[in-house]
């Protein structure tokens, strides 16, 4: 039996990218696709060199500045891995495994008898999510903030976001302006 086409398929960046994202989205409990960002970064930048660190963070920033769920940064990284097919594959890989899990949960129902387990499970997710998200922030910050001015801006924005109710889009716009003027 000729399996050359299977090797060609599974050996392609498009396939490996999709499979990795599908595995992540199917297991990413607590924090969603933002919490798995360090792993996506490790896989596409460090392990496979499909995408540069700058492209990775640019994709993330562009997705944040666009309307739509912020996990769509995966689709934009998909574009850099394999063009529009990568975008499509990234979107499918993000949405399909969770949708199948959700379908299974809907069909099986979730009775009250597992209430205590559920409560413990939910409580166990909070520290985990916090740690994962802080790790994501750290990994992004160490790649993005390559000048002290950029690092300072990030820190100031963290304080502003914690202290005020300013819409984050204003800060992203301000960041674009300062960066575009070459001030960072």
């Amino acid at each position, binding site marked *: 039996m000729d399996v050359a086409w299977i090797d060609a398929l599974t050996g392609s960046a498009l396939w490996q990218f999709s499979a990795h994202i599908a595995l992540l989205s199917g297991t990413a409990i607590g924090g969603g696709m933002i919490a798995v960002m360090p792993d996506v970064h490790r896989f596409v930048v460090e392990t496979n060199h499909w995408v540069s660190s700058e492209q990775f963070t640019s994709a993330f920033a562009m997705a944040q500045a666009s309307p*739509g769920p912020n996990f769509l940064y995966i689709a934009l990284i998909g574009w850099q891995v394999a063009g529009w097919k990568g975008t499509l594959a990234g979107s499918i890989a993000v949405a399909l495994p969770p949708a199948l899990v959700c379908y299974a949960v809907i069909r099986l129902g979730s009775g009250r008898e597992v209430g205590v387990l559920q409560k413990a499970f939910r409580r166990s997710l909070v520290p985990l999510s916090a*740690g994962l998200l802080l790790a994501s922030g750290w990994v992004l910050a160490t790649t993005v903030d390559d000048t002290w001015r950029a690092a300072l801006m990030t820190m100031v924005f*963290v304080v502003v976001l914690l202290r005020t109710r300013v819409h984050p889009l204003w800060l992203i716009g301000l960041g674009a302006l300062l960066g575009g003027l070459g001030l960072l």
Partner: protein
Amino acid sequence: MPDSNAGVAGDATHETAVANQAPAPAGGPGARKPTDGKPTIGPLQLFISFSLLTISGFGGVLPFAYRMLVEKRQWLDKTEFAELFAIAQMMPGPPILHIAQIVGHRDSGWRGGAAAVLGIMTLPTLLMMVMGLAYHQLGDIAAFRNALAGMSAAAVALIIVMGIKLAIAVPRRVRPWLVVVLAFVLLGLAHVSFFIVMALLLPLSFWFAWKESH
């Protein structure tokens, strides 16, 4: 409802506050209350509604989902939304997709669930193709790259704030904080694979939470 810049973390902390009072709905998340006289919502309407929702959401769609589902269309009441969110949090992947799917499924079965998820995904995916093309075309212009670098440095702040807001919700005890620190060190500093981190820390964190509730 938390402010829109709270994003995922704001909702997550919101969720931990309400989750303890909100039991799982009887009959599972897909069941509609028998007393509910609202007309069913067809797949096409679900697709259109969730498409409109997804393109109106900047910096996270969840707060906008609350506005649409609870305040504007009244497909859910406050408690139902909190319950749905709690359930969505416990499933892998983006919570907004689960909320959309369950709302869709409730009214139009698996077709409704699929229509709602496709509604969330389709327009942003097309938009990302356009953005990818734009990056490809403009990526060599220095000012464009610098602007993107500035945007990135600002976007990082959003993630850090999500993490901080969740960390504030972590009980101030040794064991939960051990999980926070281990997750940060393994994933952020040691660059260990996400699967290994979860395989180690999910059981550990669950065990801690279980012991503390007994």
